[in-house]
């Protein structure tokens, strides 16, 4: 049985607004519908979608904070909303934009509180704390009140807080938001190590497609409450009809290059951009171009995942 088992999950919200005059309108918003997927233990899954697509709603249902309106949902064999406190021992959650640490207390105190709350054995706690403090570079910050920490520091604190009790699953809701490039890189490295060494299952929602590229072999794309894609990264590129680009610098300006298997997208003086399917090899095209034209230089650009996703979002609903 998969660790996270979701079938036909749905969540509808009723939104009451005060319209013009005294009348109140009542609209039903289907935040999530017909959501089906399964995650096995040890996977690292990226969960992406535009704003309002239903990512946070899904996480809330998975952690038991929100009751689904319909469908079947089991995490580690438990129904999250019914067995919330039992499940709590086995999961860790990092909320990107708000902290679960105690604002006025030093970081160390927050961790100790969590030790008491989760009932972590003292030696296990010390070992974990030492390891995360070192990996996430928190040594100097342990005695600083949380409210004085920078966003990146707080995020590292939150991650430590979520992992002290050795959860099987770690949910991260937009963890790299607002971080600088260096911090993002360090965080991704940490998460990779975590998954590799401890086998922690990771489910990561994010807007940052670089996170996906760096971390997740598997990607789920959600839009308007339903999955539009579930597979690995390579398949995502193929599905998105993404193309690679061959940038050709000719010795002199010329008309559009004509070569089988590639189409010219753009020209700018002697430089031309040719696109060809992602799964095709660049070699024959390069050879053909070099054979027929006087080439000064060539380079290949990988597909832009942004375009891929945008393309997927733009697809009409598949119900």
């Amino acid at each position, binding site marked *: 049985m998969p660790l996270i088992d979701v079938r036909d999950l749905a969540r509808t919200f009723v939104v009451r607004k005060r319209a013009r005059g005294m009348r109140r309108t009542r609209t039903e918003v289907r935040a999530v519908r017909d959501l089906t997927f399964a995650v096995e233990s040890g996977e690292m899954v990226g969960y992406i979608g535009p704003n309002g697509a239903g990512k946070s709603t899904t996480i809330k249902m998975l952690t038991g*904070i929100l009751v689904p309106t319909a469908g079947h949902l089991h995490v580690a064999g438990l129904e999250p909303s019914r067995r919330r406190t039992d499940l709590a021992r086995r999961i860790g959650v990092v*909320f990107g934009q708000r902290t679960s640490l105690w604002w006025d207390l030093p970081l160390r105190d927050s961790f100790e509180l969590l030790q008491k709350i989760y009932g972590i054995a003292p030696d296990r706690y010390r070992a974990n704390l030492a390891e995360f403090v070192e990996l996430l570079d928190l040594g100097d910050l342990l005695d600083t009140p949380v409210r004085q920490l920078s966003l990146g520091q707080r995020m590292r604190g939150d991650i430590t807080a979520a992992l002290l009790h050795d959860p099987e699953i770690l949910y991260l809701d937009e963890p790299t938001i607002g971080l600088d490039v260096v911090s993002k890189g360090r965080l991704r490295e940490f998460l990779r190590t975590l998954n590799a060494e401890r086998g922690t299952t990771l489910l990561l929602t994010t807007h940052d497609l670089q996170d996906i590229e760096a971390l997740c072999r598997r990607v789920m794309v959600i839009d308007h409450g339903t999955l539009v894609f579930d597979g690995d990264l390579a398949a995502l590129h193929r599905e998105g009809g993404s193309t690679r680009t061959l940038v050709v610098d000719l010795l002199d300006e010329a008309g559009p290059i004509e070569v089988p298997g590639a189409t010219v997208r753009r020209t700018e003086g002697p430089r031309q951009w040719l696109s060809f399917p992602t799964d095709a090899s660049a070699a024959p095209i390069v050879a053909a171009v070099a054979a027929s034209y006087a080439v000064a230089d060539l380079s290949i650009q990988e597909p832009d995942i942004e375009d891929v996703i945008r393309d997927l979002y733009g697809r009409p609903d598949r119900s």
Partner: protein
Amino acid sequence: MGEALGVVRDAPRQYARIARLWVRSSLSYRASFAMLTLASLLLTFLDFVGLGLMLHLIGDLDGFALWEIALLYGASGIGIGVADLLIGSVEQIGQHIRSGTLDAMMVRPVPLIVQVCADRFALRRLGRISQAVAVFAWAAWSVDWTPSKVVVALLMVISASAIFFALFVTFSCIQFWTQDASEFANAFTYGGNTMTQYPLSIFPSEVLKSLTFVIPVAFANWYPCLYLLDREDPFGMPGWFAVAPPFVAALMCVIAGLTWRTGVRRYTSTGS
């Protein structure tokens, strides 16, 4: 049902663990802790000074002497003081919802109510309790004690705490529906406490009936104290009301528990 019993069994231990840490943390800011404890002690003492001044003026209030009022005042004060110490933080639930920390609490393996009540456990709230105990002790000196009165007095103090406990929780639950209205609970908790500082005979019978049958704070001190003071009930209520507080308290706690569950259910069913 089994889960509920498990909660009751583990809850005190989990609560104590969390509370201890907050105490340790607040003691590290010794000066501020001392000042705030002093301030809270003075604040509640002021209440009594007001009453004292009043009685200095008139000798007795509606036939009740200062020491008799002190008994009422002390009992009610102990009740709300203990409740405030142990679960007063439940009033902040609106803050937790607004800032998202309620979600963080919900994904932890300790019952939500324990976490909310133990949050920011403040030992300085002992200020109110110690002041009330002092006043009650002074008044108790003049009571004509018998063994049954001692039992009644003990039950009264415990029940008073439970009654205020229930009031705090029940009326704080409105914050599951609107996070703005945290002051709503005050009308019932601190209002109830203030009302019961006075002999209830100063109020018309409608008020007394509300305080007996609607929001039963009268059982926190009034009925038991009438027995302790060997007084006839000015409204002619049955004498056995003096031993009813434990049952009233139990009933109110059940209602509080149901209200809390309804509030949490609403939160998990509609999101925030």
